[in-house]
């Protein structure tokens, strides 16, 4: 078995390719890159460490078994992972049949600063930047819009359910969600473009290197 660090040189898509060949080291590397993101998302949704860890395991087992179904033209690997994690976690939440009439996450609390060894320090630095960016975007929203958005994304509520929980007219919730999403989209739009250009430039560079 190759040492773990050998796989750090592969980008996410290359790791997926190696996983389709059943290389366990590639899965371990992908885990080191994204387990924290996946676990944080699952934990924010289900509010329970043990369940969030089970979901995290399920997500990476699914990658192990279904890597061949990944389509790079449809989503980045990290997006694919968080899609699976979110849908799985919301399914778990729904199966519990008890939907908390409160946020899974208290957005007013400062973020905890975990003292833990980093599995992938560079990845963690990038993740922290992404977090700051998105949290800054959320912080710009009026509280009632942010509340509706959080209930939709992290609790998997429909607009109708949000209206019930918040005891507001459905039309009001629709408006809040629409405005929140438009602002979020505008705020993140420019940086998305910049990121895509950077990814494309990196891909072109990698292809050239291989030639």
């Amino acid at each position: 078995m190759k040492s773990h660090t050998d796989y750090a040189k592969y980008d996410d898509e290359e790791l997926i390719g190696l996983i389709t060949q059943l290389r366990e080291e590639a899965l371990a590397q992908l885990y080191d890159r994204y387990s924290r993101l996946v676990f944080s998302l699952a934990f924010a949704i289900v509010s329970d460490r043990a369940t969030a860890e089970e979901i995290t395991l399920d997500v990476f087992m699914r990658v192990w078994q279904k890597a061949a179904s990944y389509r790079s033209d449809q989503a980045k690997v990290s997006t694919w992972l968080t899609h699976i994690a979110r849908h799985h976690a919301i399914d778990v939440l729904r199966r519990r049949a008890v939907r908390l009439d409160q946020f899974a996450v208290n957005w007013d609390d400062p973020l905890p600063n975990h003292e833990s060894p980093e599995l992938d320090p560079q990845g963690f630095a990038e993740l922290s930047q992404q977090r700051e960016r998105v949290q800054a975007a959320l912080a710009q929203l009026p509280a009632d819009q942010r509340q509706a958005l959080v209930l939709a994304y992290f609790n998997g509520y429909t607009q109708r359910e949000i209206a019930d929980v918040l005891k507001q007219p459905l039309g009001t919730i629709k408006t809040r969600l629409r405005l929140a999403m438009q602002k979020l989209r505008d705020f993140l739009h420019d940086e998305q473009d910049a990121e895509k250009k950077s990814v494309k430039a990196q891909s072109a560079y990698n292809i050239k290197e291989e030639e």
Partner: protein
Amino acid sequence: MSKETHVLDLLPAYALGSLDSDEARRVEEHLSSCLVCRNESNAFQTAVDQLSFAAPDAVPSSDLRDRLMQRVQASRPQPRAPVQVPARSWLERLLPVWSLASLLLVVVLAGSNLFLWQRFNDLEVATSPGGMRAVPLIAQDPTSRATGYVLISADGDSGALVVDGLPPLGENQQYQLWLIRDGQRTSGAVFSTDERSYGGTRIRAPRSLTDYSSVGITIEPTGGSPQPTGPRVLGGALFNP
């Protein structure tokens, strides 16, 4: 599509998955035929995808990685003793590798039994009674023992590739399947073979596989190339549209 029927107001909630099912269905139907709304929808979906980063940072237990790798180990099939009969071992090893290929093979075998395999030997396209086709691939180099089949569903929308006798390549190279139509080559799959020189993968194409006249497999840099650059190792004729 007229402006009145656009679903722009529903797209933010659609991207969040927060529409009721009848509204979501309406949006999906509309998106299938409206480029304007599809572009808008994609932009909202990109924004929603970013929300995963809004989850407060939390760290899983340090033993979770070991638990994952244990599950991976447990999910691996137990090694088999080598099987002596070549045709049988080919199938036996293929079946667990790749579910679609195995499904197609099971269906084809159930439908046509020996008929299909007799036709394989004649290097002709075999068609099962259900309309599924199996196209043999032939090595370019007559001394090569490489062989393979392209399996195509009756409607031409799904396809599978299985190869034998293509040796595993180094880390920097993979095999790539090309679908050929009017001299244009489109990538249908990038794949690797195992230490026994076997491999299988699903074929993905922008159009029905019945629209292509032939296929070829070349050796390319890992991840594949936009157009073939390496030597052709296998090829076969599909259809004459």
